[in-house]
Protein backbone atom coordinates (compact mmCIF):
# COMPACT_ATOMS: atom_id res chain seq x y z
CA UNK A 1 0.00 0.00 0.00
CA UNK A 2 1.29 3.42 -0.94
CA UNK A 3 4.95 3.68 -0.05
CA UNK A 4 4.71 1.35 2.92
CA UNK A 5 6.33 -2.09 2.85
CA UNK A 6 7.17 -4.45 5.71
CA UNK A 7 10.34 -2.52 6.65
CA UNK A 8 8.47 0.80 6.83
CA UNK A 9 5.78 -0.94 8.86
CA UNK A 10 8.42 -2.30 11.26
CA UNK A 11 9.87 1.20 11.63
CA UNK A 12 6.44 2.66 12.36
CA UNK A 13 5.80 -0.09 14.92
CA UNK A 14 9.10 0.88 16.61
CA UNK A 15 8.10 4.58 16.53
CA UNK A 16 4.61 3.80 17.85
CA UNK A 17 6.10 1.59 20.58
CA UNK A 18 8.47 4.38 21.67
CA UNK A 19 5.60 6.85 21.76
CA UNK A 20 3.46 4.47 23.82
CA UNK A 21 6.40 4.09 26.21
CA UNK A 22 6.88 7.89 26.34
CA UNK A 23 3.17 8.39 26.96
CA UNK A 24 3.21 5.85 29.81
CA UNK A 25 6.31 7.43 31.40
CA UNK A 26 4.71 10.89 31.16
CA UNK A 27 1.53 9.51 32.72
CA UNK A 28 3.52 7.97 35.60
CA UNK A 29 5.39 11.26 36.13
CA UNK A 30 2.05 13.07 36.04
CA UNK A 31 0.66 10.68 38.64
CA UNK A 32 3.71 11.13 40.88
CA UNK A 33 3.35 14.92 40.65
CA UNK A 34 -0.46 15.02 40.80
CA UNK A 35 -1.95 18.13 42.31
CA UNK A 36 1.07 20.22 41.39
CA UNK A 37 1.43 22.42 38.35
CA UNK A 38 4.62 21.48 36.64
CA UNK A 39 5.48 23.39 33.49
CA UNK A 40 8.23 20.95 32.46
CA UNK A 41 5.77 18.08 32.70
CA UNK A 42 3.10 19.95 30.78
CA UNK A 43 5.64 20.77 28.10
CA UNK A 44 6.64 17.09 27.96
CA UNK A 45 3.02 16.03 27.45
CA UNK A 46 2.58 18.61 24.71
CA UNK A 47 5.71 17.42 22.94
CA UNK A 48 4.57 13.81 23.10
CA UNK A 49 1.20 14.81 21.65
CA UNK A 50 2.97 16.68 18.83
CA UNK A 51 5.11 13.61 18.03
CA UNK A 52 2.00 11.42 17.92
CA UNK A 53 0.46 13.86 15.45
CA UNK A 54 3.64 13.92 13.34
CA UNK A 55 3.96 10.12 13.30
CA UNK A 56 0.31 9.57 12.41
CA UNK A 57 0.38 12.33 9.77
CA UNK A 58 3.44 10.78 8.11
CA UNK A 59 2.08 7.24 8.29
CA UNK A 60 -1.26 8.21 6.75
CA UNK A 61 0.27 10.26 3.92
CA UNK A 62 2.84 7.55 3.15
CA UNK A 63 0.00 5.06 2.99
CA UNK A 64 -1.76 7.20 0.40
CA UNK A 65 1.35 7.87 -1.67
CA UNK A 66 4.02 10.38 -2.63
CA UNK A 67 1.52 13.03 -3.75
CA UNK A 68 -0.05 13.06 -0.29
CA UNK A 69 3.36 13.50 1.36
CA UNK A 70 4.19 16.38 -1.00
CA UNK A 71 0.84 18.05 -0.28
CA UNK A 72 1.47 17.61 3.45
CA UNK A 73 4.77 19.46 3.22
CA UNK A 74 3.27 22.14 0.97
CA UNK A 75 0.72 22.82 3.69
CA UNK A 76 3.45 22.82 6.34
CA UNK A 77 5.46 25.31 4.26
CA UNK A 78 2.42 27.54 3.97
CA UNK A 79 1.78 27.43 7.72
CA UNK A 80 5.47 28.06 8.42
CA UNK A 81 5.42 31.09 6.10
CA UNK A 82 2.37 32.41 7.90
CA UNK A 83 4.19 32.18 11.23
CA UNK A 84 7.33 33.72 9.78
CA UNK A 85 5.44 36.66 8.29
CA UNK A 86 3.62 37.22 11.57
CA UNK A 87 6.82 38.01 13.43
CA UNK A 88 8.80 39.43 10.50
CA UNK A 89 8.86 43.24 10.25
CA UNK A 90 7.61 43.61 6.67
CA UNK A 91 6.51 46.95 5.27
CA UNK A 92 3.13 47.93 3.97
CA UNK A 93 4.68 48.29 0.49
CA UNK A 94 5.84 44.64 0.54
CA UNK A 95 2.27 43.40 0.30
CA UNK A 96 2.16 42.48 -3.39
CA UNK A 97 5.60 40.83 -3.19
CA UNK A 98 4.32 38.78 -0.25
CA UNK A 99 1.36 37.61 -2.31
CA UNK A 100 3.85 36.10 -4.81
CA UNK A 101 5.91 34.72 -1.96
CA UNK A 102 3.00 32.96 -0.31
CA UNK A 103 0.67 31.84 -3.07
CA UNK A 104 2.69 31.45 -6.26
CA UNK A 105 6.29 30.43 -5.62
CA UNK A 106 5.61 27.59 -3.13
CA UNK A 107 3.09 26.06 -5.54
CA UNK A 108 5.59 26.07 -8.42
CA UNK A 109 8.31 24.74 -6.13
CA UNK A 110 6.22 21.79 -4.95
CA UNK A 111 4.89 21.22 -8.46
CA UNK A 112 8.46 20.78 -9.77
CA UNK A 113 9.07 18.44 -6.87
CA UNK A 114 5.94 16.49 -7.74
CA UNK A 115 7.12 16.23 -11.36
CA UNK A 116 10.48 14.83 -10.09
CA UNK A 117 12.01 17.66 -12.08
CA UNK A 118 15.12 18.09 -9.94
CA UNK A 119 16.91 20.49 -12.30
CA UNK A 120 14.05 22.98 -12.10
CA UNK A 121 13.30 22.38 -8.43
CA UNK A 122 16.90 23.04 -7.38
CA UNK A 123 17.15 26.42 -9.12
CA UNK A 124 13.62 27.82 -9.00
CA UNK A 125 13.97 29.49 -5.61
CA UNK A 126 17.71 30.29 -5.35
CA UNK A 127 17.87 31.67 -8.90
CA UNK A 128 14.51 32.78 -10.23
CA UNK A 129 12.57 33.60 -7.06
CA UNK A 130 15.54 35.28 -5.36
CA UNK A 131 15.99 37.55 -8.36
CA UNK A 132 12.31 38.11 -9.05
CA UNK A 133 11.19 39.05 -5.52
CA UNK A 134 13.51 42.08 -5.14
CA UNK A 135 12.48 43.18 -8.63
CA UNK A 136 8.82 43.08 -7.60
CA UNK A 137 9.71 44.96 -4.43
CA UNK A 138 11.63 47.63 -6.35
CA UNK A 139 8.65 48.09 -8.67
CA UNK A 140 6.55 48.82 -5.60
CA UNK A 141 8.70 51.94 -5.29
CA UNK A 142 9.48 52.02 -1.57
CA UNK A 143 13.25 52.22 -1.00
CA UNK A 144 13.30 52.57 2.78
CA UNK A 145 15.22 49.67 4.39
CA UNK A 146 15.18 48.02 0.99
CA UNK A 147 18.09 45.67 1.64
CA UNK A 148 16.67 44.43 4.93
CA UNK A 149 13.25 43.89 3.40
CA UNK A 150 14.62 42.04 0.38
CA UNK A 151 16.78 39.86 2.61
CA UNK A 152 13.93 39.10 4.98
CA UNK A 153 11.60 38.00 2.19
CA UNK A 154 14.23 35.80 0.58
CA UNK A 155 15.07 34.22 3.87
CA UNK A 156 11.44 33.46 4.64
CA UNK A 157 11.29 31.62 1.32
CA UNK A 158 14.60 29.84 1.89
CA UNK A 159 13.72 28.47 5.32
CA UNK A 160 9.97 27.94 5.09
CA UNK A 161 9.69 26.64 1.54
CA UNK A 162 12.98 25.66 -0.12
CA UNK A 163 14.58 23.98 2.88
CA UNK A 164 11.41 22.25 4.04
CA UNK A 165 10.67 20.92 0.56
CA UNK A 166 13.95 18.99 0.67
CA UNK A 167 12.33 16.65 3.20
CA UNK A 168 9.93 15.10 0.64
CA UNK A 169 12.64 15.48 -2.06
CA UNK A 170 14.59 12.78 -0.20
CA UNK A 171 12.04 10.26 -1.49
CA UNK A 172 13.54 10.69 -4.96
CA UNK A 173 17.08 9.74 -3.92
CA UNK A 174 16.82 5.93 -4.31
CA UNK A 175 16.23 6.23 -8.06
CA UNK A 176 19.27 8.55 -8.31
CA UNK A 177 21.34 6.06 -6.29
CA UNK A 178 20.24 2.97 -8.25
CA UNK A 179 19.72 4.24 -11.79
CA UNK A 180 21.63 7.53 -11.87
CA UNK A 181 20.67 11.19 -11.83
CA UNK A 182 19.63 11.20 -15.48
CA UNK A 183 17.12 8.42 -14.96
CA UNK A 184 15.68 10.09 -11.89
CA UNK A 185 14.83 13.28 -13.80
CA UNK A 186 11.13 13.13 -14.52
CA UNK A 187 10.79 9.60 -13.14
CA UNK A 188 7.23 8.56 -12.24
CA UNK A 189 5.63 9.46 -8.93
CA UNK A 190 6.34 6.98 -6.20
CA UNK A 191 9.37 5.58 -8.05
CA UNK A 192 11.43 5.98 -4.89
CA UNK A 193 9.10 3.42 -3.36
CA UNK A 194 9.46 2.25 0.20
CA UNK A 195 13.23 2.91 0.05
CA UNK A 196 12.53 6.60 -0.51
CA UNK A 197 10.08 6.67 2.36
CA UNK A 198 12.64 4.95 4.60
CA UNK A 199 15.38 7.42 3.72
CA UNK A 200 13.08 10.35 4.53
CA UNK A 201 11.98 8.69 7.77
CA UNK A 202 15.64 8.05 8.66
CA UNK A 203 16.35 11.78 8.60
CA UNK A 204 13.13 12.75 10.40
CA UNK A 205 13.54 10.13 13.14
CA UNK A 206 17.23 10.87 13.73
CA UNK A 207 16.86 14.66 13.79
CA UNK A 208 13.72 14.65 15.94
CA UNK A 209 15.35 12.19 18.36
CA UNK A 210 18.38 14.46 18.45
CA UNK A 211 16.06 17.29 19.55
CA UNK A 212 14.50 15.00 22.16
CA UNK A 213 17.79 13.79 23.59
CA UNK A 214 19.29 17.29 23.59
CA UNK A 215 16.27 18.27 25.67
CA UNK A 216 16.60 15.26 27.97
CA UNK A 217 20.39 15.54 28.45
CA UNK A 218 20.11 19.31 28.79
CA UNK A 219 17.40 19.04 31.45
CA UNK A 220 19.32 16.44 33.46
CA UNK A 221 22.99 17.41 33.08
CA UNK A 222 22.97 20.77 31.32
CA UNK A 223 25.19 23.41 32.92
CA UNK A 224 27.20 25.25 30.28
CA UNK A 225 25.18 27.13 27.68
CA UNK A 226 26.52 27.08 24.12
CA UNK A 227 25.25 30.57 23.29
CA UNK A 228 23.87 32.11 26.49
CA UNK A 229 22.66 35.27 24.81
CA UNK A 230 20.60 33.27 22.31
CA UNK A 231 19.16 30.43 24.34
CA UNK A 232 20.05 29.47 27.93
CA UNK A 233 18.40 26.07 27.34
CA UNK A 234 20.91 24.93 24.72
CA UNK A 235 23.84 23.56 26.71
CA UNK A 236 27.05 21.79 25.73
CA UNK A 237 25.96 18.78 27.78
CA UNK A 238 22.64 18.63 25.96
CA UNK A 239 24.26 19.17 22.57
CA UNK A 240 26.95 16.51 22.95
CA UNK A 241 24.71 13.99 24.71
CA UNK A 242 21.82 14.51 22.31
CA UNK A 243 23.83 14.45 19.11
CA UNK A 244 25.87 11.41 20.14
CA UNK A 245 22.77 9.49 21.24
CA UNK A 246 20.94 10.29 18.02
CA UNK A 247 24.02 9.47 15.94
CA UNK A 248 24.22 6.08 17.65
CA UNK A 249 20.55 5.51 16.86
CA UNK A 250 21.22 6.58 13.27
CA UNK A 251 24.05 4.04 13.01
CA UNK A 252 21.71 1.42 14.46
CA UNK A 253 19.18 2.25 11.75
CA UNK A 254 21.63 1.54 8.90
CA UNK A 255 19.41 -1.39 7.83
CA UNK A 256 16.67 0.97 6.61
CA UNK A 257 19.15 2.90 4.42
CA UNK A 258 21.31 1.95 1.44
CA UNK A 259 24.40 2.77 3.56
CA UNK A 260 26.88 0.90 5.75
CA UNK A 261 26.62 1.52 9.48
CA UNK A 262 29.44 4.08 9.57
CA UNK A 263 28.07 5.97 6.57
CA UNK A 264 24.67 6.11 8.28
CA UNK A 265 26.38 7.32 11.47
CA UNK A 266 28.24 10.10 9.65
CA UNK A 267 25.10 11.29 7.85
CA UNK A 268 23.22 11.20 11.16
CA UNK A 269 25.98 13.17 12.87
CA UNK A 270 26.00 15.92 10.24
CA UNK A 271 22.18 16.05 10.22
CA UNK A 272 21.99 16.34 14.01
CA UNK A 273 24.58 19.12 14.05
CA UNK A 274 22.74 21.00 11.31
CA UNK A 275 19.52 20.44 13.25
CA UNK A 276 21.08 21.95 16.36
CA UNK A 277 22.24 24.98 14.40
CA UNK A 278 18.80 25.32 12.82
CA UNK A 279 17.30 25.57 16.29
CA UNK A 280 19.96 28.08 17.28
CA UNK A 281 19.32 30.32 14.26
CA UNK A 282 15.56 30.20 14.80
CA UNK A 283 16.06 31.04 18.48
CA UNK A 284 18.09 34.08 17.41
CA UNK A 285 15.23 35.25 15.22
CA UNK A 286 12.68 34.72 17.99
CA UNK A 287 14.86 36.47 20.54
CA UNK A 288 15.40 39.41 18.21
CA UNK A 289 11.66 39.73 17.60
CA UNK A 290 10.89 39.33 21.31
CA UNK A 291 8.76 36.19 21.02
CA UNK A 292 9.07 32.81 22.67
CA UNK A 293 7.49 30.71 19.93
CA UNK A 294 6.52 30.94 16.29
CA UNK A 295 2.83 31.43 17.03
CA UNK A 296 0.50 28.90 18.61
CA UNK A 297 -0.66 26.87 15.62
CA UNK A 298 -0.62 23.69 17.69
CA UNK A 299 -2.34 25.13 20.78
CA UNK A 300 0.16 25.50 23.59
CA UNK A 301 2.90 23.71 21.63
CA UNK A 302 4.30 26.72 19.80
CA UNK A 303 4.21 26.87 16.04
CA UNK A 304 5.01 24.65 13.08
CA UNK A 305 8.39 26.35 12.72
CA UNK A 306 9.31 25.48 16.32
CA UNK A 307 9.00 21.81 15.37
CA UNK A 308 10.53 22.04 11.90
CA UNK A 309 13.49 24.35 12.59
CA UNK A 310 16.00 21.52 12.94
CA UNK A 311 14.67 19.57 9.95
CA UNK A 312 14.68 22.60 7.69
CA UNK A 313 18.41 23.03 8.27
CA UNK A 314 19.35 19.37 8.07
CA UNK A 315 17.23 18.19 5.11
CA UNK A 316 18.98 20.15 2.31
CA UNK A 317 22.42 19.14 3.56
CA UNK A 318 21.38 15.51 4.04
CA UNK A 319 19.93 15.47 0.50
CA UNK A 320 22.95 17.02 -1.17
CA UNK A 321 25.52 14.94 0.70
CA UNK A 322 23.78 11.78 -0.50
CA UNK A 323 23.34 13.14 -4.01
CA UNK A 324 27.02 14.11 -4.17
CA UNK A 325 28.58 11.01 -2.67
CA UNK A 326 26.18 8.21 -3.58
CA UNK A 327 24.71 9.04 -6.98
CA UNK A 328 26.19 9.24 -10.43
Amino acid at each position, binding site marked *: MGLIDSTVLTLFICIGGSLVLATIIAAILGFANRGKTNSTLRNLNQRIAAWWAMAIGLAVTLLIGETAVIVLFLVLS*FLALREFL*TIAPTHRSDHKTLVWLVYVIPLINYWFLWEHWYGAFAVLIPVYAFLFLPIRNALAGDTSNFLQRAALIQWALMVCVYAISYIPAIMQLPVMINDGREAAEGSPLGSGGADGALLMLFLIVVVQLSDVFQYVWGKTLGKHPVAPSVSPNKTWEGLIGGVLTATAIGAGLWWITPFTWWQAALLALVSCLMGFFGGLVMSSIKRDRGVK*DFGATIAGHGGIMDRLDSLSFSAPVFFHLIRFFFTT
Partner: protein
Amino acid sequence: MSAMRFLKRGLSGLITTASGAQIRAAGADGAEPEFPPQAIYYANHSSHLDFVTLWAIMPAELQPRVRPIAAADYWGSGLKKSVAQGIFNAHLVHRYKDRPHTRADESATRQTDSGSSPRSSQLTGMTEILDAGDSLIIFPEGTRGPEDQVAAFQAGLYRLAKHAPEVPVVPVTLKNLGRMLPKGESIPVPRLSQVVVHTPLFVGDETQEAFLTRARAVLVDELQAAEGETP
Protein backbone atom coordinates in the same frame (compact mmCIF):
# COMPACT_ATOMS: atom_id res chain seq x y z
CA MET B 1 -30.13 24.65 14.51
CA SER B 2 -31.29 25.72 11.09
CA ALA B 3 -29.22 25.03 7.99
CA MET B 4 -28.33 28.71 7.63
CA ARG B 5 -27.15 28.88 11.20
CA PHE B 6 -25.11 25.73 10.73
CA LEU B 7 -23.51 27.26 7.63
CA LYS B 8 -22.75 30.44 9.53
CA ARG B 9 -20.98 28.48 12.27
CA GLY B 10 -18.94 26.71 9.60
CA LEU B 11 -18.08 30.03 8.01
CA SER B 12 -17.12 31.45 11.40
CA GLY B 13 -14.74 28.57 11.99
CA LEU B 14 -13.26 29.04 8.54
CA ILE B 15 -12.72 32.77 9.03
CA THR B 16 -11.18 32.26 12.47
CA THR B 17 -8.81 29.60 11.07
CA ALA B 18 -7.89 31.65 8.01
CA SER B 19 -7.14 34.75 10.04
CA GLY B 20 -5.21 32.61 12.54
CA ALA B 21 -7.12 34.52 15.19
CA GLN B 22 -6.09 33.94 18.74
CA ILE B 23 -8.83 35.28 20.98
CA ARG B 24 -7.98 36.39 24.49
CA ALA B 25 -9.00 38.71 27.26
CA ALA B 26 -6.84 41.77 27.90
CA GLY B 27 -3.98 41.28 30.35
CA ALA B 28 -1.06 38.90 30.50
CA ASP B 29 -2.71 35.86 32.10
CA GLY B 30 -4.35 34.62 28.91
CA ALA B 31 -7.81 34.39 30.47
CA GLU B 32 -10.92 33.53 28.46
CA PRO B 33 -12.65 36.67 27.21
CA GLU B 34 -16.16 37.50 28.32
CA PHE B 35 -18.88 38.43 25.88
CA PRO B 36 -21.83 40.17 27.56
CA PRO B 37 -25.27 39.09 26.19
CA GLN B 38 -25.84 42.61 24.88
CA ALA B 39 -23.03 45.04 24.20
CA ILE B 40 -21.68 47.77 21.97
CA TYR B 41 -18.47 46.29 20.62
CA TYR B 42 -16.03 48.74 19.12
CA ALA B 43 -12.63 48.12 17.58
CA ASN B 44 -9.75 49.70 15.71
CA HIS B 45 -10.23 49.57 11.96
CA SER B 46 -7.54 48.85 9.41
CA SER B 47 -8.91 46.10 7.18
CA HIS B 48 -11.99 44.59 5.58
CA LEU B 49 -11.13 41.53 7.64
CA ASP B 50 -11.93 43.44 10.83
CA PHE B 51 -15.67 43.16 10.71
CA VAL B 52 -15.83 39.58 9.43
CA THR B 53 -13.30 38.42 12.02
CA LEU B 54 -15.06 40.16 14.88
CA TRP B 55 -18.33 38.62 13.71
CA ALA B 56 -16.73 35.18 13.37
CA ILE B 57 -15.31 35.02 16.89
CA MET B 58 -18.66 35.78 18.55
CA PRO B 59 -20.00 32.90 20.68
CA ALA B 60 -22.58 30.85 18.79
CA GLU B 61 -25.49 31.85 21.00
CA LEU B 62 -24.73 35.59 20.68
CA GLN B 63 -23.79 35.75 17.02
CA PRO B 64 -27.35 35.89 15.60
CA ARG B 65 -28.02 38.99 17.68
CA VAL B 66 -24.88 40.93 16.78
CA ARG B 67 -25.21 43.61 14.12
CA PRO B 68 -21.97 44.85 12.54
CA ILE B 69 -22.25 48.39 11.24
CA ALA B 70 -20.92 48.64 7.70
CA ALA B 71 -20.54 51.55 5.31
CA ALA B 72 -23.28 51.72 2.69
CA ASP B 73 -20.97 53.37 0.17
CA TYR B 74 -18.82 50.23 0.11
CA TRP B 75 -21.10 47.36 1.16
CA GLY B 76 -24.38 48.82 -0.04
CA SER B 77 -24.73 47.42 -3.55
CA GLY B 78 -24.88 44.16 -5.49
CA LEU B 79 -23.30 40.99 -4.19
CA LYS B 80 -21.48 42.79 -1.38
CA LYS B 81 -24.81 43.98 -0.06
CA SER B 82 -26.38 40.53 -0.05
CA VAL B 83 -23.29 39.06 1.64
CA ALA B 84 -23.13 41.82 4.26
CA GLN B 85 -26.82 41.69 5.09
CA GLY B 86 -27.64 38.06 4.38
CA ILE B 87 -24.70 36.41 6.06
CA PHE B 88 -23.17 38.89 8.47
CA ASN B 89 -26.46 40.50 9.43
CA ALA B 90 -24.86 43.89 8.88
CA HIS B 91 -26.62 47.20 9.34
CA LEU B 92 -25.61 49.57 6.56
CA VAL B 93 -25.14 53.25 7.24
CA HIS B 94 -24.21 56.22 5.10
CA ARG B 95 -20.89 57.69 6.14
CA TYR B 96 -20.02 61.32 6.71
CA LYS B 97 -19.38 62.34 3.16
CA ASP B 98 -19.26 65.99 4.17
CA ARG B 99 -16.18 65.51 6.25
CA PRO B 100 -13.40 63.58 4.53
CA HIS B 101 -11.56 61.70 7.26
CA THR B 102 -7.84 61.78 6.63
CA ARG B 103 -4.70 61.18 8.64
CA ALA B 104 -3.61 64.74 8.01
CA ASP B 105 -6.44 66.21 10.01
CA GLU B 106 -6.06 63.67 12.78
CA SER B 107 -3.70 65.89 14.76
CA ALA B 108 -6.12 68.74 14.40
CA THR B 109 -9.00 66.74 15.82
CA ARG B 110 -6.93 64.98 18.44
CA GLN B 111 -7.13 67.94 20.81
CA THR B 112 -10.87 67.58 21.06
CA ASP B 113 -11.24 63.92 20.13
CA SER B 114 -14.83 64.75 19.50
CA GLY B 115 -15.12 64.02 15.83
CA SER B 116 -17.94 65.47 13.87
CA SER B 117 -21.63 65.29 14.58
CA PRO B 118 -23.25 62.26 13.06
CA ARG B 119 -26.48 62.84 11.23
CA SER B 120 -29.35 61.89 13.44
CA SER B 121 -30.81 59.52 10.83
CA GLN B 122 -27.59 57.58 10.92
CA LEU B 123 -27.86 56.90 14.62
CA THR B 124 -31.57 56.19 14.63
CA GLY B 125 -31.07 52.80 13.01
CA MET B 126 -28.42 51.89 15.57
CA THR B 127 -30.42 53.01 18.58
CA GLU B 128 -33.33 50.93 17.31
CA ILE B 129 -31.05 47.90 17.20
CA LEU B 130 -30.01 48.55 20.81
CA ASP B 131 -33.62 49.08 21.85
CA ALA B 132 -34.49 45.72 20.34
CA GLY B 133 -31.90 44.13 22.65
CA ASP B 134 -29.33 43.35 19.94
CA SER B 135 -25.60 44.10 20.04
CA LEU B 136 -23.59 46.37 17.77
CA ILE B 137 -20.13 46.13 16.27
CA ILE B 138 -18.88 49.58 15.34
CA PHE B 139 -15.63 51.10 14.19
CA PRO B 140 -15.60 54.60 15.69
CA GLU B 141 -12.71 55.77 13.51
CA GLY B 142 -15.22 55.79 10.68
CA THR B 143 -12.80 54.44 8.11
CA ARG B 144 -9.86 52.10 7.74
CA GLY B 145 -6.43 53.46 8.65
CA PRO B 146 -2.85 52.15 8.90
CA GLU B 147 -2.46 48.99 10.98
CA ASP B 148 -0.72 50.46 14.02
CA GLN B 149 -2.64 53.73 14.32
CA VAL B 150 -6.01 54.63 15.76
CA ALA B 151 -7.59 57.77 14.33
CA ALA B 152 -9.76 60.15 16.34
CA PHE B 153 -13.15 58.67 17.21
CA GLN B 154 -16.41 59.87 15.73
CA ALA B 155 -19.02 60.93 18.22
CA GLY B 156 -21.43 58.08 17.45
CA LEU B 157 -19.93 55.76 20.05
CA TYR B 158 -20.65 58.29 22.80
CA ARG B 159 -24.18 58.95 21.58
CA LEU B 160 -24.97 55.25 21.51
CA ALA B 161 -23.49 54.70 24.95
CA LYS B 162 -25.54 57.61 26.28
CA HIS B 163 -28.65 56.25 24.60
CA ALA B 164 -28.34 52.91 26.39
CA PRO B 165 -26.14 53.56 29.45
CA GLU B 166 -26.84 50.11 30.91
CA VAL B 167 -25.39 48.33 27.86
CA PRO B 168 -21.67 47.59 28.33
CA VAL B 169 -19.30 49.16 25.80
CA VAL B 170 -16.70 46.51 25.02
CA PRO B 171 -13.36 47.60 23.52
CA VAL B 172 -11.78 45.07 21.16
CA THR B 173 -8.24 45.45 19.84
CA LEU B 174 -7.59 43.78 16.50
CA LYS B 175 -3.95 43.03 15.81
CA ASN B 176 -2.30 42.10 12.53
CA LEU B 177 -5.50 42.06 10.47
CA GLY B 178 -4.38 45.33 8.91
CA ARG B 179 -1.10 43.66 7.96
CA MET B 180 -3.00 40.78 6.37
CA LEU B 181 -5.27 42.88 4.18
CA PRO B 182 -4.37 46.57 4.31
CA LYS B 183 -6.47 49.26 2.74
CA GLY B 184 -6.08 49.25 -1.03
CA GLU B 185 -5.13 45.56 -1.35
CA SER B 186 -7.39 42.80 -2.56
CA ILE B 187 -5.51 39.60 -1.73
CA PRO B 188 -4.82 38.89 1.95
CA VAL B 189 -1.38 37.68 3.04
CA PRO B 190 -1.61 34.99 5.72
CA ARG B 191 -0.47 35.96 9.19
CA LEU B 192 -1.60 35.09 12.67
CA SER B 193 -3.89 37.69 14.18
CA GLN B 194 -5.03 38.46 17.68
CA VAL B 195 -8.36 39.62 19.01
CA VAL B 196 -8.07 41.16 22.46
CA VAL B 197 -11.35 41.65 24.32
CA HIS B 198 -11.12 44.28 27.05
CA THR B 199 -13.08 44.93 30.24
CA PRO B 200 -16.38 46.68 29.39
CA LEU B 201 -16.67 50.46 29.76
CA PHE B 202 -19.75 52.31 30.89
CA VAL B 203 -20.41 55.92 30.09
CA GLY B 204 -20.53 57.98 33.25
CA ASP B 205 -21.04 61.60 34.08
CA GLU B 206 -18.44 62.66 31.60
CA THR B 207 -18.19 64.79 28.53
CA GLN B 208 -18.29 63.33 25.06
CA GLU B 209 -14.67 64.29 24.65
CA ALA B 210 -13.58 62.58 27.88
CA PHE B 211 -15.43 59.37 27.05
CA LEU B 212 -14.12 59.15 23.50
CA THR B 213 -10.57 59.82 24.70
CA ARG B 214 -10.90 57.10 27.33
CA ALA B 215 -12.37 54.64 24.84
CA ARG B 216 -9.70 55.31 22.24
CA ALA B 217 -6.89 55.06 24.80
CA VAL B 218 -7.78 51.43 25.57
CA LEU B 219 -7.06 50.41 21.98
CA VAL B 220 -4.01 52.65 21.59
CA ASP B 221 -2.42 51.29 24.78
CA GLU B 222 -3.00 47.69 23.74
CA LEU B 223 -1.52 48.23 20.29
CA GLN B 224 1.54 49.97 21.71
CA ALA B 225 2.06 47.45 24.51
CA ALA B 226 2.41 44.64 22.02
CA GLU B 227 4.56 46.28 19.39
CA GLY B 228 6.45 43.52 17.64
CA GLU B 229 5.00 40.96 19.98
CA THR B 230 2.76 38.10 18.90
CA PRO B 231 1.40 35.01 20.67
